[in-house]
């Protein structure tokens, strides 16, 4: 079955090429993208089922055995994230097709989107550190194009910051790679893990910190998060949604993967990660409270939520990492949904500024429901998925006697609820305040009973159902996350599977 592993990477790339070839027909492009992403989703689910029952799958590209060739490895964590990523990509694609403007005006949209999909899949599946760099670049280059598609002045401004920061992070990644290669003589991740054990503690500790900085920039950890709230809100809503759901999570995945696989317990920086996690949570949520734009509030919340995932990792216990994985699952679904609803608000109200829209609980009641469920879930109100994810993390934190970070996480939850209520009050309850000084906002469009075009509302509703399904199926999902966490804490099996099949 290991021939399935490269499919989620190769298929979207083929689709991207086909989408360029049929560039004259937007309908043909849409069919290609939808079919490709649906097949990718099915393949990802098959991989997850297979990996969960029979252990990690390894594919050696070109048939070269592990330390020589590039290996693609699907273990439980990769497979879980792959399924989530494919689901989000498919839902957001349908939303983008339904939204006037975002996708229709650009011949390159579908290709760039599929390349992004390939890059995300490759980042989750690769078993080679240099290949991880390449996968990051594939994903980021596609994201640069998507972010600046259209070339409006504010897109250029924020896109520029984003590209410069990403390029600096990539250069640091190359630097880290060079140093790790000089010390271990390999770029295969399993092989690095094996050889890292023989290095002096000071050197492994330095590598661990360097990789935290490199991936911390991509994941938007405090104090490396400042680029995110500036660049994400500018893109068209579906693009922001997919960035918010997936790109920072790829960074978190890379942190979890490298910290658990490469470094022996004595060179792991648990306390540092916990401090960073607490600061990330607190600074992110305080930033969100200061904003008055739905998309900017949500962007600051991405930063805040990243803190929870790092908190789970920083505990370095089975319960902690399980909580982090469960949190990532919940967060990807809920955050993507919230940004899609943000797009619907913008569509229905002509703006995403809280001062410009209002009273939508009467004009678009369906949107109010679609917003309220993920918003309460994000804040951690029972019985939604966010409550269960936070409960798992808090429980793990108490189990490891890390009182301070648990206290911070609880206060931040309360502040999250506050800023979600601020959006609720501003967008749905309050009357419209002023429409007088509309600088660049579009006039409000008439909305139907659904609160927007059906192809925008349906994928959003589907994701809301997904997030409810997470809380209904929390038991089996938590068990799956626990098995994935257990794999991460005992990397010997991973190493054996890659190097000695």
């Amino acid at each position, binding site marked *: 079955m290991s021939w399935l592993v490269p499919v989620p990477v190769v298929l979207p790339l083929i689709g991207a090429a086909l989408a360029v070839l049929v560039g004259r027909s937007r309908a043909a492009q849409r069919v290609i993208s939808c079919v490709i992403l649906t097949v990718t989703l099915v393949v990802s689910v098959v991989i997850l089922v297979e990996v969960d029952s029979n252990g990690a799958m390894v594919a050696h590209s070109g048939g070269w055995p592990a330390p020589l060739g590039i290996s693609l490895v699907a273990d439980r964590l990769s497979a879980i994230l792959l399924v989530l990523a494919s689901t989000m990509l498919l839902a957001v694609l349908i939303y983008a097709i339904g939204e006037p403007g975002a996708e229709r005006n650009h011949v390159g949209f579908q290709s760039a989107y599929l390349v992004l999909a390939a890059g995300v899949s490759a980042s989750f599946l690769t078993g080679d550190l*240099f290949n991880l*760099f*390449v996968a990051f*670049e594939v994903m*980021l*280059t596609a994201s*640069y*194009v998507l972010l*600046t598609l259209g*070339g409006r*002045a*504010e897109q*250029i*401004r*924020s*896109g*520029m*910051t984003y*590209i*410069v920061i990403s*390029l*600096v992070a*990539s*250069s*640091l990644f*190359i*630097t880290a*790679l*060079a*140093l790790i*290669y*000089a010390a271990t003589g390999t*770029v295969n991740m399993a092989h690095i893990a094996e050889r890292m054990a023989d290095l002096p503690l000071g050197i492994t500790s330095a590598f661990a910190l360097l990789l935290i900085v490199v991936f911390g920039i991509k994941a938007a950890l405090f104090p490396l998060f400042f680029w995110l*709230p*500036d660049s994400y*809100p500018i893109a068209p809503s579906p693009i922001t949604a997919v960035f918010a759901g997936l790109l920072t999570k790829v960074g978190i995945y890379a942190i979890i993967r490298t910290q658990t696989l490469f470094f022996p317990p004595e060179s792991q920086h648990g306390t540092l990660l916990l401090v960073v996690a607490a600061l990330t949570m607190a600074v992110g949520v305080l930033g969100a409270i*200061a*904003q*008055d*734009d739905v998309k*900017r509030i949500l962007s600051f919340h991405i930063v805040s939520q990243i803190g929870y995932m790092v908190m789970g990792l920083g505990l370095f216990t089975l319960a902690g990492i399980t909580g982090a994985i469960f949190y990532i699952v919940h967060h990807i679904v809920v955050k993507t949904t919230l940004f899609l609803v943000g797009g619907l608000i913008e569509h229905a109200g002509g703006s995403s*500024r*809280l*001062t410009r829209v209002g009273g939508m609980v009467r004009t678009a009641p369906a949107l109010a429901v679609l917003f309220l469920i993920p918003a309460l879930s994000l804040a951690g109100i029972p019985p939604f998925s966010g409550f269960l994810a936070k409960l798992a993390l808090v429980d793990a934190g108490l189990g490891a006697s890390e009182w301070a970070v648990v206290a911070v996480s609880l206060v931040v939850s309360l502040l999250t609820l506050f800023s979600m209520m*601020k959006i609720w009050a*501003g967008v749905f309850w309050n009357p419209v305040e002023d429409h007088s000084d509309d600088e660049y906002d579009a006039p409000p469009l008439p909305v139907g009973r659904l609160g927007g075009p059906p192809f925008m509302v349906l994928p959003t509703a589907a994701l809301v159902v997904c997030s409810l399904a997470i809380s209904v199926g929390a038991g089996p999902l938590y068990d799956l996350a626990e098995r994935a966490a257990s794999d991460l804490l005992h990397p010997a099996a991973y190493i054996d599977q890659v190097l000695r099949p």
Partner: protein
Amino acid sequence: MTVLLAATAAALFAIGTYLILQRQLSRIIIGLGLITHGANLLLITSGRRGRAPLVGEADPSLMSDPLPQALALTAIVITFAVTTLLLALAYRSWLLTSDDDVEDDVGDRSVARGTGPDHELRDQMESMVAGEDEPVET
């Protein structure tokens, strides 16, 4: 030799970092070019040095390590492509604003000015400020 290469990489990083912190886009792009060169140089330095790694050219034990060279080549191609995109964006930015500076973020400025949604808070602030001097328009 390794020390010389490491020192060169360090100098490239230092100058690049200085340039990236400037406000003009053209300097930032040149700075990025220097930093990526520094990183690539470090990548080359990480392998063993020696003769050209071609079969039959030299004894394998005397050959240099070809892997970092291949990695550096890949990294150069990638950063080349991204730098090209960045130059295109810089040109677009010049067309739109007819200057070379990185602009402030609109949202940040409005938050800093206090024109957010909290009208009561804003009015309070304005009445406090009005007592002393006019708020400065950035």
